[in-house]
């Protein structure tokens, strides 16, 4: 920060603070990527603990362990923190580590802003988690923040709105950085259509983030002024409309769904070709499918609102546009399967998670199609069927892809192979546990059990108990994952440069662990 420090840069001898100052001031994409991933892990366990408390309460009908208001706080914060604190930062961590390595770039385009994008997240995290200890507790209005309920809450509601502003700022700056890096920092000869698919999916994700995060900021700003400064955006007595919030929110919210899954598509599209030892089937169609999903995501938002009383023409439009998304998604699933077809497959942990991703994400995709049908959705709106649907796409989709990516690149990051046996144990516990939690929820939802309620009718007991047992199996098996990661950081078999036999791409040309600075001179790609 001092002039002396900047003078050093001219001679190419960077100065690096040590200890905590290294992490606070770092401008290195690998350091920042590592911080994103650790932050995501901590948030995963915080919000996961909330999920286990929810499942504990739901083990029996009737109120067992907590007041309904605290239950509502748990469901709300579980959603907010998993989405904004765990899944999104984890993908940004991958982007930070991998995009410069995959593009042959010396770092991200704006290293200082990159640091700020990360260090805003702990601020928002403290504000969200800290609100549990405020008078009235944390927000309990659902992660979707619908008025009028959200207008009526206490202090923590305002704090949550500001936390969302700060997280949005972080996402926008991070996305501008990622887009600029991809558009401007590729090695000579690495044309866009030669880029690894992970970079493509992040390019499109970053575009979605820049387009929708400001809309969310606008929506929560209107909540803030309705709460505190006398506006009537969402109050019919003043000429406003509470349903308008839902429109604006889901204009952000549906692209957000793809923000949570497109980078997962990218990770899986790197892993499956590696372990099938074949190039990705239909690379160009993968790119176009990703772009189509992104564009369609802007015209489907009201399928989240079929029960609010939309005009019939609107219901039809949003129903059909939503179903259209199944086409490019189907292209992707087909391409992953076709990549494996006649490949020489091996089943290391990353590949296991990737295959589980393809199978289970597809189940989530199909239940999404069911929900896309307006007449069906009227029955299923706000039941456990919806909970089952989005956990199949977010847990066995986004989260499994994150696990797959961690196992895939951990040897490159740490220089050590992880313990394959433990990795496989983690995989099997996760995949079995996950299905025990969420598969019965389909039946609960079809039978009419409403979500976000701490109590339920007696006939739902058995499936709820199965789900709760599954939740504890799934939750505690994640400790195996932490053990695997810590073991690989501490030591283990030395990883070669090209960690996996079938791995292609620039990141496998640098040593393992990747040196602090890579590609200071750009490689030439033919």
């Amino acid at each position, binding site marked *: 920060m001092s*002039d002396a420090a900047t003078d050093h840069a001219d001679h190419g001898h960077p100065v690096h603070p040590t200890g905590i100052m290294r992490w*606070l001031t770092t401008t290195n994409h690998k350091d920042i990527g590592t911080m994103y991933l650790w932050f995501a892990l901590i948030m995963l366990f915080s919000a996961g603990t909330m999920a286990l408390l929810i499942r504990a309460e739901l083990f029996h009908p009737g109120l067992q362990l907590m007041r309904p208001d605290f239950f509502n706080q748990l469901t709300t914060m579980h959603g907010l923190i998993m989405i904004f604190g765990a899944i999104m930062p984890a993908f940004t961590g991958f982007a930070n580590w991998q995009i410069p390595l995959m593009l042959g770039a010396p770092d991200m385009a704006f290293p200082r802003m990159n640091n700020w994008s990360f260090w805003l997240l702990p601020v928002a995290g403290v504000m969200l988690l800290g609100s549990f200890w405020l008078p009235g507790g944390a927000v309990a209005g659902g992660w979707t923040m619908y008025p009028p309920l959200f207008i009526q809450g206490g202090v923590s509601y305002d704090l949550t709105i500001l936390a969302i502003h700060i997280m949005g700022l972080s996402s926008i700056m991070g996305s501008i950085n990622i887009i600029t890096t991809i558009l401007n920092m590729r090695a000579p000869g690495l044309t866009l259509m030669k880029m690894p698919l992970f970079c493509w999916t992040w390019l499109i994700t970053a575009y979605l983030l820049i387009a929708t995060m400001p809309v969310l900021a606008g929506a929560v700003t209107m909540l803030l002024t309705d709460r505190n400064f006398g506006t009537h955006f969402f109050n019919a007595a*003043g000429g406003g409309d509470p349903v308008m919030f839902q429109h604006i929110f889901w204009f952000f919210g549906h692209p957000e769904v793809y923000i949570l899954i497109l980078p997962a598509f990218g990770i899986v599209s790197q892993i499956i070709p590696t372990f099938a030892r074949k190039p990705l089937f239909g690379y160009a169609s993968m790119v176009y499918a990703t772009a189509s999903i992104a564009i369609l995501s802007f015209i489907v938002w009201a399928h989240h609102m079929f029960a609010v009383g939309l005009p019939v023409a609107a219901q039809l439009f949003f129903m059909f546009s939503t179903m259209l998304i199944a086409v490019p998604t189907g292209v992707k699933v087909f391409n992953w399967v076709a990549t494996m077809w006649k490949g020489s497959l091996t089943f290391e942990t990353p590949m296991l998670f990737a295959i589980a991703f393809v199978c289970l994400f597809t189940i989530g995709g199909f239940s999404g199609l069911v929900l896309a049908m307006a007449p069906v959705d009227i029955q299923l709106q706000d039941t456990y069927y919806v909970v089952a649907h989005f956990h199949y796409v977010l847990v066995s989709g986004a989260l499994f892809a994150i696990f797959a990516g961690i196992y895939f690149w951990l040897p490159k990051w740490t220089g050590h192979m992880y313990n394959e046996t433990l990795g496989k144990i983690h995989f099997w516990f996760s995949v079995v546990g996950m299905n025990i939690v969420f598969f019965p929820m389909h039946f609960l939802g079809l039978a009419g059990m409403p979500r976000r309620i701490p109590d339920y009718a007696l006939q739902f007991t058995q499936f709820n108990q199965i789900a709760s047992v599954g939740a504890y199996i799934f939750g505690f098996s994640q400790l195996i994952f932490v053990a695997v990661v810590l073991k690989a950081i501490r030591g283990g078999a030395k990883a070669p440069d090209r960690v996996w036999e079938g791995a292609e791409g620039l990141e496998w040309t640098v040593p393992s662990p990747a040196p602090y600075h890579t590609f200071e001179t750009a490689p030439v790609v033919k």
Partner: protein
Amino acid sequence: MSLAQTDRYYLPQPSLWPIIGSVALLTMAVGGVMTIHDVNHGGWVLLAGVAILFFMMFGWFGEVIRDSEAGRYNKQVDSSFRWSMSWFIFSEVMFFAAFFGALFYTRVLSVPWLGESDTMQQLWPTFKATWPTAGPGLTADGMKFTPMEAWGIPAINTLLLLSSGVTVTWAHWGLKRNNRAQLILGLAMTVALGATFLGLQAFEYHHAYTKMGLTLGAGVYGATFFMLTGFHGFHVLVGTTMLIVMLLRSIAGHFTPEHHFAFEAVSWYWHFVDVVWVLLFVLVYWLI
């Protein structure tokens, strides 16, 4: 200070500014919530946060300016700046889109629905669902306001902002031809036009609050009016501040005819603010 003196992409040293910025935003958020909920000294905490934020901006931007003037930014870095500013302006467009969307939704859909609904007929039978409105409940409670007329201050403000788009372009021509006097004069005129705009808008707001009954609480018309024009006014304030920095830097001899992206970025931003105003003038002031 030539451009492209190095083929290496400039990678900055570790920096304390980002974490100072995070501390600033945390302090501001906590102070803001304290102020809203009347906790003692909330205003001071908020102010401290703002002070830290200003300290961070001075320090961080100063460092960027020094890096630039020392010739550390080559063509590729310049290109990064261009991409990032374009995407940043796109994000701003989407922020305004949320509020324009709210205006469209209420005017075209939800307010007319209030007039059609049977329930509303029962609750507030005298309510006329026309724009501008303070809504059925507030109107029944006696809320009265005069909507803002387009052909007074707003029309003058339109002229001011459109002229400022011309003067900033004229200043840019001066810079490109290395005519420093034209650059400085053009920038000074742009700043003056922006400041006059802000002064007139402040007067308009004062008039609306004291004479017209038009407040933030005047139903959905008041809410959309003040949020749209208010956020736009805030952007004019930010733009004018950035123009002042460009003016001071020009006087200090910064920028060359080939290398002056900071100036261009500010002028892009200024034109964006200009376009938003034209939309506001047509959709908020004129067509009511």
